[in-house]
């Protein structure tokens, strides 16, 4: 995914602001990256380099931390982040079927963003709501007992029309 110059500029600015409140200790690395992600929604390369400079460590060490942890996203997420729980309880209650539904409806794979950047799809390990399995988290809101038809309903609530009777597998959906 290509970042625009504007996006890079914003990323640098925000990262700079965040770094101001952190001392130059390596122990601050993860909290800083978390802050960057909270502000920008992801951790761009330029931000990692800026963080490396601040902490006085090689950029590659920052990359290796950012890539080790599942939490960090290296590309901008969609406007709506869809996270499907793949924990035990959710899996046994059909979580993979729900994930497939999202993939099919959005025509993207896990860790991808729709071309219009409206939606991104991720899998998460147990969000601790196993009693409501299978669970999908949309923008921090937990939806329990999801069924394939509820996937359509949820998309509908975001103004996405599922063209009934036309969609083939892999075909993109219409949006408004």
């Amino acid at each position, binding site marked *: 995914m290509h970042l625009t110059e504007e996006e890079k500029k914003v990323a640098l600015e925000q990262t700079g602001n965040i770094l101001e409140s952190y001392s130059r200790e390596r122990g601050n*690395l993860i909290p800083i990256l978390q802050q960057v992600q909270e502000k920008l929604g992801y951790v761009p390369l330029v931000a990692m380099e800026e963080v490396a400079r601040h902490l006085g460590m090689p950029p590659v060490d920052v990359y290796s931390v950012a890539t080790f942890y599942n939490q960090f996203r290296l590309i901008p997420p969609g406007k709506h982040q869809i996270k499907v729980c793949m924990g035990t309880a959710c899996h046994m209650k059909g979580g993979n079927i729900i994930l497939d539904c999202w993939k099919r409806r959005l025509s993207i794979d896990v860790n991808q963003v729709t071309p219009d950047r409206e939606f991104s799809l991720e899998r998460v390990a147990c969000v601790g709501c196993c*009693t409501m399995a299978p669970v999908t988290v949309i923008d921090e809101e937990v939806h329990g007992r999801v069924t394939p038809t509820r996937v359509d309903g949820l998309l509908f609530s975001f103004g996405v029309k599922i063209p009934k009777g036309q969609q083939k597998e892999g075909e993109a959906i219409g949006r408004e």
Partner: protein
Amino acid sequence: MTEIFEKLQQKSRAVWQSLRDRPLILVGTATCGRAAGALEILKVIKEELVKHGIDAQVLEVGCMGHCYAEPLVTVYKPGFPPISYGYVTAGIAGRLVEDFLAGDDPCLEFALAALEANDMVPALTDFPRGMIERPIILDKCGLIDPEQIEHYIALGGYAALATALAREPGWVVEEIKASGLRGRGGAGFPTGRKWETCRLAPGEEKYVICNADEGDPGAFMDRAILESNPHEVLEGLAIAAYTVGARRGYFYIRAEYPLAVERVKKAIEQARRAGLLGTNILGSGFSFDVDVFQGSGAFVCGEETALIASMEGEPGLPRHRPPFPATAGLRGRPTVINNVKTLAYVPHIIERGAQWFRETGTAGSPGTAVFALAGKVINTGLAEVPMGTTLRQLVYDVGSGIPKGKSFKAVQIGGPSGGCLPEAALDMPIDFDSLSQAGAMMGSGGMVILDEDDCMVEIARFFLDFTQKESCGKCTMCRLGTRQMLDILEAITKGQGRPGDIELLLELAEDVKSGSLCGLGKTAPNPVLSTIRYFRDEYEAHIKERRCPALMCRELIAYYILPEKCERSCDACVGSCPVEAIYPNEDRIKVIDQQKCVKCASCLEACPPQYKAVIKLSPPELVAERGATNRG
């Protein structure tokens, strides 16, 4: 010191008492409640109260453990016993205000149970589970506002900290040792011994860390406790700090638990303001403060040394032990790391004594255990029961058995490090030692109940997939051995298993166990070993007959509509199919185009229960046979 604390108690009791002078409504807004719509209910209740001009207090509380019945609302009205209502909808919430608070009808048709014995409504303690449950660390969960420290203090909170501060640290160590408390993070290590090691370790600077990483999928006890009663854990952490001589402490909370993070941060803030954290706590001369460190979504970071690495800004790679963190942990300094539940027990033990704690549970595992019941069980949720309770009591008395009249198959316990126990193990008393003998593990207490529709090979594959993805990659056997095991399991679930695969899995399991440094790799084969041990026939059916007996493995099943059961004028399945794989044949009976079907089960769920025309067949070739006879 006691004087300062007594003042705090008096003030808190006044706050608590003031809740009782008019109607009080509690709404459970822990994550489970929210997922069921509790915030909407909260809004409705507040609006209705205004509409009816009723002067009542509304509080957001945590989770009572009855997650199956969320959203849950509890009403205290003078003259009535406190009553909890389950499965509350906006309509029911409105009725509670209108009929019960404005009127005098307690709407018993919606009541789940009363909180106390009375002669109007059955109480929770009258339930079969009420006889078994022995809440110690869950006792205030769902009954107090986690964001008001006064509630916790009014019910006895922080008294243990005051008691401990008035004694020698050595006394606390002895008390915890005498209680026999074992760590609830998985391995069951004696807490007193850990604290003693750290206390005696040389070093000026020491740390205490609450491990709230709770990475086991299917476990949510720690989340529920932190969201429902964070002060209990904070108090335990402060006592730990005093005992070992630490001035700084941390909560290491996983990123997926935003609400827990928020509530813990608030709790820390309030404790500071009340003088229960910070410098010279309660005038004792002891100073201690706490920060929250958020995890970053790596399961292995629940392991102590990996957790420390991540706090130091490194990738979360475990390292060799010894030295143990208790002597050389965070920043090389002596560090005590304890699980959320372990710390939550501490104030209770200090308050009521080691002997009291030993009265519950078994000789080797004193106290209670908190289990999270999920999966195919009617009453999903949390339960705290004495150690040594049997699985049968948990599944049938606490959980009310298996839904939809299906039969019990196994319980998966202890997360990816644990194993699957079959029906024959139902009467086994569960504690740390009995479970490891049976090839499972207590783990942190997550329990996923499986029924006849769950495939044991598939669940083994699921866990291997999990551990394989979460392996930090440092040990070759953990990284590559689990990969190879996963490949074999995947092949089996796709019907491509070969004779000898089971033996190969058993061999690899031994290699992975012995070739791994940390608990992740050492226990990764457990789900495979225990499913082979107890469900070998299922593996064989997959390998020899390309058949999934539980009808779960997608490559080995096909959906099929029974012509004799299909109701011609019903189109429910057609509409439900996301890929238009269902069409009517010349007799208007529905048929599935197997080429198009993506096996999503929508049709099976959509077909009305009076017809039940959609079934699954395994192996998928059976469809061709049936199809031939039907059409011919």
